[in-house]
């Protein structure tokens, strides 16, 4: 079910403002691709354009092409709702639904997709997804308790379970560990390693060690100057990015000599 993504000449606008310019990249199936770069350089914007979530902001639109296994995401015939059902997303802050139990949180996406589900089928999905998110052992005795009662790290894994419950083709993660402590972060990173075998994962991170630890390929985004659109500076295999990048700006950013 994992699929590759091709981005070609992608320009992303917020109204008239060009936020990101000329992005080209190929994201491999069953691999982890990390986006790094300074704040405001557009990496989250690019990530959100991969499942058309940026369109939630009024006036946001794109030019260029994004294809998932050859299927264009921005064809006029494509419904953004259908895109989002196939490309899951995990956000910066854990956002389980406050009024739902752990069980119902996991099933939230499935309930949208198919109205009727047998109890055993639902139980299976919940168990499989929570196991997939390494959360099953911690919550299996309190599935009917509210999701908000979990710790931050557990909540984030619950959100991952919710995202993978619908078996998406791609999983997008927008700084999934930035609100978590190191132990929870480590748990999520281990999980990303495991999920890689089934899913195509794209992760935005501010933590370069994290990018080096979890990703196979890395894209470095930067701004030419304040007020200018962001662009993709370099896209390479992660070991090469961190050892011997092609671009001087990448090296300056990675080695902390940025400015």
């Amino acid at each position, binding site marked *: 079910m994992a699929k590759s993504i091709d981005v070609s000449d992608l320009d992303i606008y917020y109204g008239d403002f060009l936020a990101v310019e000329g992005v080209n990249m190929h994201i491999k199936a069953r691999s982890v691709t990390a986006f790094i770069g300074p704040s405001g350089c557009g990496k989250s914007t690019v990530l959100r354009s991969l499942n058309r979530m940026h369109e939630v902001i009024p006036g946001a639109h794109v030019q260029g092409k994004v294809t998932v296994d050859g299927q264009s995401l921005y064809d006029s015939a494509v419904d953004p709702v259908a895109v989002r059902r196939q490309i899951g997303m995990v956000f910066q*802050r854990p956002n389980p639904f406050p009024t739902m139990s752990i069980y119902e949180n996991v099933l939230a996406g499935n309930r949208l*997709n198919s109205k009727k589900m047998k109890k055993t089928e639902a139980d299976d999905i919940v168990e499989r997804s929570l196991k997939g998110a390494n959360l099953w052992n911690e919550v299996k005795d309190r599935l009917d308790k509210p999701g908000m009662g979990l710790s931050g790290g557990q909540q984030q894994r619950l959100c991952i379970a919710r995202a993978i419950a619908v078996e998406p083709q791609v999983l997008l993660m927008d700084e999934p560990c930035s609100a978590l402590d190191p132990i929870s972060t480590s748990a999520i990173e281990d999980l990303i390693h495991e999920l890689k075998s089934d899913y195509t994962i794209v992760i935005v991170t501010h933590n370069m060690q994290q990018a080096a630890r979890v990703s196979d390929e890395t894209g470095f985004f930067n701004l030419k100057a304040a007020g200018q659109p962001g662009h993709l500076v370099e896209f390479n295999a992660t070991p090469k990015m961190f050892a011997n990048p092609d671009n001087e700006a990448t090296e300056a950013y990675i080695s902390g000599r940025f400015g």
Partner: protein
Amino acid sequence: MTTAIREPEQQQELPARARTTRVGDAVFRRTALGAALLVVGLLAGVAIFLVIQGLPALDASGEQAYGKPSVWSYVGPLLFGTILSSALALVIVTPLAIGLALVISHYAPSKVAKPVGYLVDLLAAVPSVVFGLWGIAVLAPRMVPIFDWLNDWFGWIPLFAGPVSNSGRTLLTASVVLALMALPIVTAILREIFAQTPTTQQEAALALGATRWEMIRMAVLPYARSGMVAALLLGLGRALGETMAVAMVLSATGAIISFDVISSANSNTIAAAIANNYANAAGLKINVLIFAGLALFVLTFAVNFLGRYVATRGQVKA
């Protein structure tokens, strides 16, 4: 009362210097305390007046109780009419206000949403006399065909048993006017509550592939649930106490209990009955009307408290 208990504690905690130098704090604290006590005092004054002036009505009967054996059998039906008309108004206003508030907060582009929001707010500025005139002259005649239809199809429900009133000035017409009058406040509160739904919750639903309506059901409505109840109860409070529009629109039969809301035999409401009768009242009749006012006071008080209780109890932490 609670302030008086807390005060010594706070003063002990504060270092002496802070207490003497911050004149502004002291002035503000006294002013705020004074304002709070004034409100409590006024409310207590009203309650005391209603009780003292209303209690003698318990002795009223016959002619003094407007032809009823006791004050209870006069006030009871009025209370019934008040609750029935307000409940109907609430039933009418709930879907309207929720739909309107959702359009303003989530559906319409901001270019449209803002003016619509202002217009709804302006509806609150229309005097109730104007609503009353509109209700008599415009709404009531146009309600008659609707009443006929309701009577034809739903006549088996006691509410629409008929016979249909010719003038259209029935309890249901009054309820429609009440609903329109409660609409601005309810919509304004709902709009604010819906707009406060955390973006993270809405994005969570959208990222799962929810349509906008599914997102609203998944994220917005659960988040707003307690606020919605509170908003509707505040609207109910508004409808319960409304006087002028009901007094004008409703062609009331007097203190009767009638579930039929489309016939010409209509229960009156407390506020409208007081307004209609007070000018001609004398002696114990005044006490009877004040006693009716006391009943309304207690009722609105209870509704408002219920609203506050639900609002604070059910708050969802994001």
